[in-house]
């Protein structure tokens, strides 16, 4: 399985840490995946194997979680490293804007 993560995702995760107010480091692993260290958490992020309905894998120790895209990846990563994180679902207004 390829572990390589594109640069755009590495850049996003690097920018996400300060945006979330979390101290940590994102680095490349030897196989092209990403490693994220924040406090006592060490995550490995890799591309999901082909044929699965997922795009990314987030490894945390022995546990691997698969996510289908960037929103899910960010949610999973932040939930692992930011105890204050409370995800909020988007709502669409029933009332329109003034015409």
């Amino acid at each position, binding site marked *: *399985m*390829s572990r*390589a993560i*594109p640069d*755009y*995702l590495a*850049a*996003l995760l*690097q*920018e*996400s840490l*300060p*945006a*979330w*107010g979390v101290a940590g480091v994102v680095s490349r692993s030897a196989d*092209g995946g990403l490693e994220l260290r924040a406090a006592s958490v060490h995550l490995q992020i890799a*591309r999901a194997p082909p044929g699965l309905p997922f*795009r990314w894998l987030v490894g945390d120790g022995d546990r691997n979680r698969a996510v289908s*895209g*960037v*929103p899910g990846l*960010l*949610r999973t990563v*932040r939930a692992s490293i930011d105890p204050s994180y*409370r*995800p*909020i*679902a*988007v*709502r*669409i*207004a*029933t*009332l*329109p*804007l*003034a*015409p």
Partner: protein
Amino acid sequence: MIPVWVLTGFLGSGKTTLLGRLLKSPDFSRTAVIINEFGEIGLDHDLIETSEESFVALQTGCLCCAVRDDLVLTLEDLLRRRAAGTAPPFERIVIETSGLADPAPILHALMLGPTLAGQLVVAGVVTTVDAVNGWRTFDRHREALKQVAVADRLLLTKTDLLDAPATRLTARLAALNPAARLLTATFGEVEAAGLFDLVCGSRAPAELARWLALSAPGERRGTEHGHDPEITSVAIVRDRPMRAVGLTLLLEVLADHCGGDLLRLKGLVNIVECPERPAVIHGMQHVFHPPAWLARWPSQDRRSRLVLIGRNLRQAWIEALLTALEMEVDEVHGVAAKLPATDEQ
């Protein structure tokens, strides 16, 4: 469709005085006012005289805390009575919040009330600011900062009590919410037309232009060197049209990760699937209106432009997020450049 305005502002900033004057004006006739007072015995509604065609309804308790459902019920009741002819045929509604209220939950209740759809439109937020005490109020009460940050119109009151122009305060207001139009009440008088005109919709190009001007190169943004460093505005300009699903995912992530810190978002977006008609998007915290589609581009500039106001927003993160979403959506659509060879085994 009846426009609904939210009138907010900190305690003593002149909301009730303003309403009292406006309701006597012919330009402001046929207005239904809902006044929210904090306390068991309301007083403000007794202080307001109206013309025969306007009237005042009262709610007690803090709108943003416990009685949001009551607000929807009050609005539904007003609409029923209007339809039945037992209430005057009002043409606009103004909701005056209590001075301690966070306006965002009130707007959410308004935006999400399912039974109100098709009858009301959200017109905007007017915030009164006391020119004498406003500075100290901002230093002490975060609610007051939020009331300013979500405003479409800022009205500086009590300026006649100042010895000198409120230059520092107006600069602070401009830093907190550079997109809002700042008006001044002179001896309590203000032109209703300038204050409560429709501001948010697809037929308000001037209003949209004010927001989008913030995305111009060199425009000063953010208050990092000012007094309220946690509240910043971020402007994003994208040359590439955006796929509709990419915009949806962007709003999902912003709601998910910024939540209550995203005080306002407005934008004009070039959507791949509909390139001739720009989409106007507008949201507050995690609640967004469905896009309003302009009939045509207002200028030759067809770039997507987003302006966000909120706490601790980081431009670099939002830019990186947009890039990642665009790349991923393109990959899924099979139109992006191939991923680097190291991505495949």
